[in-house]
């Protein structure tokens, strides 16, 4: 809360982000003059229809791609490439199958040259926080999908980045496990203050996890609306979320906004533009 008093707390600033990528059918415009700002310590969720450019935005923030147009700033500096200060949690296939749970979680620290003793301490703490105790020496193929994602999350947190980018990290796990993982993520974030951008296409997930929910338009994506969600920092669980009238109203509002994008049938100006660009 003290940090909020200082004026410049914009951790991530994206302005005029416009990106095209090549496909077999010619260039496709993923995003269109997208503007976005994330404050330090904030948990921002990004929700939008499939193919709206959510992942493109995340890749640009991670430094995996260069924006065709516009700027992507982290701590006021343009993102030049991947870096330790910006951790990424992928949907799947991200932890190394030939490393045990312990060695996967400690991998970032190993790369950073952290001493074995300190590494073990951090890994032990994260194993505790993510409920992986007893699985330290297992290999990923011996774990369930949910467990593997816990390892991926723990590995990113262990490396202690300022910003964490999460690309639908729980989309590939079963529904029941997903609920648990979401609650665990809330707890992890209250224990460790991180700036998080979390991409999802689940409205409930977006509202449940976020301090703010950003809704994107369909492709080419822009930010359509920003909705504040109060009370994330105090902790959250699904039972109370489902009966909280205020949160449910927000979820309905977000759902309406997302469905407007899905339901829209008349080609927008942007779409005609994209088609024109292809021809």
């Amino acid at each position, binding site marked *: 809360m003290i940090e909020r008093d200082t004026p410049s707390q914009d951790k991530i600033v994206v302005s005029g982000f416009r990106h095209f990528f090549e496909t077999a059918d010619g260039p496709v415009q993923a995003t269109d003059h997208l503007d976005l700002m994330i404050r330090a310590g904030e948990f921002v969720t990004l929700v939008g229809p499939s193919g709206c450019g959510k992942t493109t935005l995340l890749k640009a923030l991670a430094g995996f791609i260069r924006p065709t147009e516009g700027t992507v700033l982290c701590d006021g500096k343009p993102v030049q490439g991947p*870096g*330790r200060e910006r951790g990424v949690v*992928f949907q799947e296939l991200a*932890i190394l199958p030939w490393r045990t749970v312990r060695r996967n979680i400690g*991998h970032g620290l190993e790369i950073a040259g952290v001493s074995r003793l300190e590494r073990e301490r951090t890994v032990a703490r994260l194993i505790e926080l993510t409920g992986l105790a007893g699985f330290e020496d297992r*290999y990923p193929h011996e774990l369930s999908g949910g467990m593997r994602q816990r390892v991926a999350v723990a590995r990113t947190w262990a*490396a202690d980045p300022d910003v964490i980018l999460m690309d639908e990290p729980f989309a590939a796990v079963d529904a029941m496990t997903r609920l648990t993982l979401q609650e665990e993520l809330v707890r992890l974030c209250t224990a460790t203050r991180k700036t998080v951008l979390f991409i999802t296409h689940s409205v409930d997930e977006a509202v449940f996890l976020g301090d703010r929910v950003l809704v994107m338009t369909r492709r080419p994506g822009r930010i359509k609306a920003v909705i504040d969600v109060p009370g994330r920092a105090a902790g959250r669980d699904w039972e109370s979320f489902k009966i909280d009238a205020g949160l449910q109203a927000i979820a309905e509002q977000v759902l309406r906004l997302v469905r407007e994008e899905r339901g829209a049938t008349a080609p927008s100006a942007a779409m005609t533009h994209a088609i024109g660009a292809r021809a």
Partner: protein
Amino acid sequence: MSMVSATSASTGLSRPASGPAIVWRQLRAFRILLPFVALVGVWWAIYASADFSPQVLVSPLAVWRAFVNLVTHGVMAEYASTSLRMIGFATALSLIVGVPIGFAVGVNRYAAHTLESFLRFLQGISGIAWLPLAIIWFGFSHTTTLVIVIYTLIVPIIFNTMIGVRAIPETYTLALRSLGASRLRLVRDVYLPGALPSIVVGLRLGMGYGWRALIAAEMLVRQGGLGDLIFGARTFGQIDRIMTGMIVIGCLYIVVDRLIVQPIENLTVAHWGALRQ
């Protein structure tokens, strides 16, 4: 029949369950030898069926005598060790050179695309087809043999390393780069372990092709080795020596493949392969 039942009966007294199991295991071990026994049987039958001149066909017993003779005089050890040294040296050099090339090509999508057809083209031109040129350039020397064997060995190693690297999910490298990994780190922590099962497959294929190319090259180069042994024996019509050499060539290949390469492959494929998500 009576022996089998006697065995199972005597062991059956102390441990009823394991009796038939032991017999079954012994039968299975024998099963591997069955085709060899059959081959020798057919050979002997053909030999006995007509009056062959020793310049055309000899009996298995004569081959066995030739083998014992070659071994006791140290001749076999001399020729076999030359061949084994050659294949060993060629394998080591091919791994040292081929694996890094495979990595370099595999990580670069454009390079991989560009070189794939070219590598297949080279695979099509067998090592033996290079022999005329190699002999012109390097003479009847060990260099010629080595060049042929390394060429034969290295292409499958490069090719399979490349395939192995390309099969690694991109997220592994992206995730590691986000953890601050350097290029060297990516090679050590992602490409090498990720491509290892494929590299071992390439090594095994390469050694199989390389062994055959080695024997062929030795036959023409005539500077020692098992190929030289059998081709030299032809000049004096020593059928027993030729057949002994052929059998040793086959046996040594089995020994190298089964006792050295296959265990490595099993270890990596069973261990690393199963670890793939």
